[in-house]
């Protein structure tokens, strides 16, 4: 008889405060598994965002520090430059990274900072109650786009991976999702590769994770998970967007 322990050692023994079916929970576990399996828990520093994952330090059993909303990439830059042996990752929502933190993530990517950004794209501001995010799809209703996002008024959904791929300092960029066993496994591989990119001193890495927010999408969890396949990943195609690591063996996901 062999129990498969679902909780990696790098996760504290605390129940997640996230909503039912929320992708943050799965993303947390996947990252924790990678940290555990890579044996880097004792040199990892995480930078959680302002966002639903603001309390991520209650879950990850590694050193963590807060950053002001959107400034994760700058904080991580400071950490990494002062502690180059460390493995430094930011964990950022779409509001955090693609709205208020636009300049920070772009310039960190352009400098090729040896950090890894885990970018949770749930197409809304989760924590503050479902406002429009830069990644909100066209016609999607949110509390601040009550008539549905209108390109003319509110602009277009931003493809962060493709945008950051533009920068020479960005080395490894992949988009995944956490809405199916296959995508979850793919996410894990991507996170591992992103960390490895950093450890190998190659440049900036980012994994965008399409992540369900059933609460603010006003869907049942499984409808939200399906919506990622059916709608969201059309705007945000899953796959490796950029890889200049030289190692492309894992890219099939």
């Amino acid at each position, binding site marked *: 008889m062999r129990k498969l322990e679902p909780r990696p050692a790098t996760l504290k023994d605390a129940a997640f*405060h*996230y*909503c039912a079916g929320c992708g943050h929970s799965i993303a947390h576990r996947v990252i924790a598994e990678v940290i555990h399996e890579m044996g880097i828990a004792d040199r990892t520093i995480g930078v959680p965002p302002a966002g*639903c994952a603001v*309390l991520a330090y209650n879950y990850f059993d590694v050193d963590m520090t807060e950053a002001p909303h959107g400034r994760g990439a700058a904080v991580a830059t400071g950490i990494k430059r002062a502690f180059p042996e460390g493995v430094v990752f930011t964990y950022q929502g779409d509001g955090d990274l693609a709205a208020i933190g636009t300049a920070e993530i772009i310039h960190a990517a352009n400098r090729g900072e040896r950090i890894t950004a885990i970018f949770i794209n749930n197409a809304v501001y989760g924590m503050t*109650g479902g406002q429009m995010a830069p990644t909100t799809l066209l016609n999607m209703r949110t509390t601040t786009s009550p008539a549905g996002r209108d390109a003319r008024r509110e602009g277009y959904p931003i493809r962060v991976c493709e945008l950051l791929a533009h920068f020479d300092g960005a080395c490894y960029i992949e988009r995944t999702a956490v809405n199916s066993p296959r995508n979850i496994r793919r996410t894990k591989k991507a996170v591992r590769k992103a960390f490895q990119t950093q450890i190998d001193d190659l440049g900036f890495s980012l994994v965008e994770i399409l992540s369900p927010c059933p609460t603010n999408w006003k869907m049942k969890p499984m409808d939200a998970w399906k919506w990622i396949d059916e709608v969201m990943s059309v705007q945000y195609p899953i796959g490796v967007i950029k890889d200049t690591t030289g190692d492309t063996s894992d890219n099939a996901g």
Partner: protein
Amino acid sequence: MLVKTLFAGFGGQGVLMMGYCVAYTAMLEGRHVTFMPSYGAEVRGGTANCTVTISTAEIASPVASSPENVVVMNQPSMERFQHHVRTGGALIINSTMCEREPVRKDISVHAVPATRIAEELGDIRAANMVLAGAFTRLTHNVSLEMLLDAVGDIVGRKRAHMLELNHRAIIAGHEYFDLKKPAKKRKD
């Protein structure tokens, strides 16, 4: 006269709407009133609560550490908030969703099978209105008639079906205690 009531339950049970209707009623009655929702990270947990304060004079604080009345729509809220009720105050319980009994003995406890009644009326989402009706009956904090009026304003008289359902739920809640013998330690 100043009376505070805390309404609590799972998100989605219409707790805030219940409190809002009561507060709105008090406004129609020309009283001073505040409605204070709990807000914050708790929302993630799926519970919600709000405090309604009704008074004949200006209201100093819209929050309550020990309200006169507590209306709870489920077991976890009952467990937590029964301890907030002021000694001698009233605890109104949606008994359909509460298995255990409250432990407090120094307050009056009123059990209403609100969810079941609402189900019988055709929509379990009206359980909150059943409790609102019971609330008027038990506390006399606001009047039944004005509550019916208030809900008319709020739901909108055009949505006749919804309105009718809500009205019936309120009346059912109100009348529930007429059909039933008084609760232990019941007081007006």
